[in-house]
């Protein structure tokens, strides 16, 4: 009897189905139209790979894609290192001076409007006369994405049973050894997931990259954006589909990694 109130109602199922359809239909339509043979984006002219060929002959677009890829790999790696260290300090460091400021600096960029982050970093780079290009964008992306890594790893560390580390130390490990042989293997999947999140966030960013890059080193989103402003082009559909495919691969790997680790403790983080 009492169980009745916990059953899925028709309302629940409908809202779920509509919500998921809303999230996925536009992307599915975009992918389908990338295989459209017609130049007019909206007229179906049969299946074709023509626009993919066009992309692979577009030198400027390929340069931008290569630049984005390098920035994403470098910044995701740096962000994973720094973000993991920050997560360890926050969840295992107990109290320390400046802790409030530290966590504030790590959580604020998660919601900070990108125009502010981008503008402020650019002003710093100009003030120290840094040459704008690959490294300035990489530093900017590292700063943003390490916060996401820190949250992902921290929520995993929080769910971890601390008596495991303590047992290792009781058995004679020093803290470094206990961390490397007990804690690190357990949080490795979430570190991997953090790297991939950082990678996709960097690959995706338009605003911060626009502020921090220099002439001649546009990233892929910057190029796509300037094309999109001029209107819909079938070549853009093809590029977007390729990016979606790349991200889908990353997601499959990431979910595999997190399935390995998710015995207990659902992530409290918004990710």
């Amino acid at each position, binding site marked *: 009897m009492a169980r009745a109130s916990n059953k899925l109602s028709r309302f629940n199922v409908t809202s779920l189905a509509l919500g998921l359809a809303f999230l996925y239909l536009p992307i599915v339509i975009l992918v389908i*139209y990338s295989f459209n043979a017609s130049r007019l984006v909206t007229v179906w002219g049969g299946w074709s790979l023509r626009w993919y060929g066009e992309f692979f002959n577009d030198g400027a677009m390929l340069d931008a894609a290569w630049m984005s890829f390098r920035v994403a790999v470098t910044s995701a790696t740096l962000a994973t290192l720094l973000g993991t260290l920050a997560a360890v300090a926050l969840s295992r460091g107990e109290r320390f001076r400046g802790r409030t400021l530290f966590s504030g600096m790590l959580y604020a960029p998660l*919601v900070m409007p990108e125009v502010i*982050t981008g*503008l402020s970093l650019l002003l710093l780079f100009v003030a120290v006369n840094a040459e704008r290009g690959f490294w300035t964008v990489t530093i900017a992306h590292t700063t943003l994405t390490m916060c996401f890594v820190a949250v992902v790893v921290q929520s995993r560390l929080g769910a971890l049973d601390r008596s495991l580390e303590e047992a290792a130390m009781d058995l004679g490990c020093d803290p470094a050894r206990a961390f490397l042989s007990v804690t690190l293997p357990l949080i490795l999947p979430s570190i991997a997931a953090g790297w991939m999140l950082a990678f996709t966030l960097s690959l995706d960013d338009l605003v911060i990259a626009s502020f921090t890059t220099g002439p001649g080193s546009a990233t892929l989103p910057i190029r796509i954006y300037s094309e999109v402003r001029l209107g*819909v082009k079938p070549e853009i559909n093809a590029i977007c589909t390729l990016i979606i495919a790349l991200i889908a691969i990353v*997601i499959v790997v990431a979910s595999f990694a997190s399935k390995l680790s998710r015995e207990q403790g659902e992530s409290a983080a918004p990710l």
Partner: protein
Amino acid sequence: MSARRIFARPARRAAIAPYVWMALFFLVPFIFVVKISLSQTAIAQPPYTPVFDLTGGVGAIKAAFAALSLDNFKLLLSDDLYVFSYLRSLLVAVVSTSILLLIGYPIAYGMARLPARWQSVAMMLVIVPFWTSFLIRIYAWINILQHDGLLNQILLALHLVSTPVVWLSTDSAMYLGIVYSYLPFMILPLYATLAKIDPALLEAANDLGSSPRQAFWLVTFPLSLPGVGAGVLLCFIPIVGEFVIPDLLAGSDSLMIGQTLWLEFFTNKDWPVASSAAVVLLLLLLAPLLLYDRLQRRQLEAR
């Protein structure tokens, strides 16, 4: 000394590198924003007159303080363009956050009531679009909403309209784009709190004679309020400063502050005014930012 305390000491040391990094690339840049917001516009490269030149010694610093000007802020407050941009940004953020809550809550609620096995699948399905490029998702909508796009074709085929409707460059398109892009940010914190509610509480309410509807409003909804707060802040703050979505989907007759800032910076090359616009935006968002910081800290560090 307990093992936990011994472990804490090297763990604290792990903070050094990320601490220095964030101080250098997150905190220090704000000092430059404030500094440049107080300086004069100049036709030069970079396009402003620097106000602090520490190489000149004490005298130069004194002179620099005398040269500080609030002109940019006065301009922001006296020019309707900026005032309207701020008001419009706040309005857009309030309206779209409300729509997000209305749409996101039933979806999160549906997810939380799925059998446990299906819940992680549903969560995955909600997260995946969040990983897909932001720009691509907006572009996908441009495909659908354009003059001879799919939506108009369907409406015409069904004889619901006789001529194509203008969807792009309207506020409705912008709201659609914002709701579409931020929906996962609303659903996930809501789902996280809804899934944690003990079903025994609902059974108790049922046993005590309340209808499912009463039980929802008396038990479930009040318990989900922390999730509502997190979701609202997670959407509201970035939407206020949003640039890409209004730029690509809304008309150009009224701008949000993110667009105004972008325009001042990239088109007018007026860095001091752009910086003051950023300072004011930051001040507007300070209260929600602090609230969000507290919520996030409680969530991650309470365990």
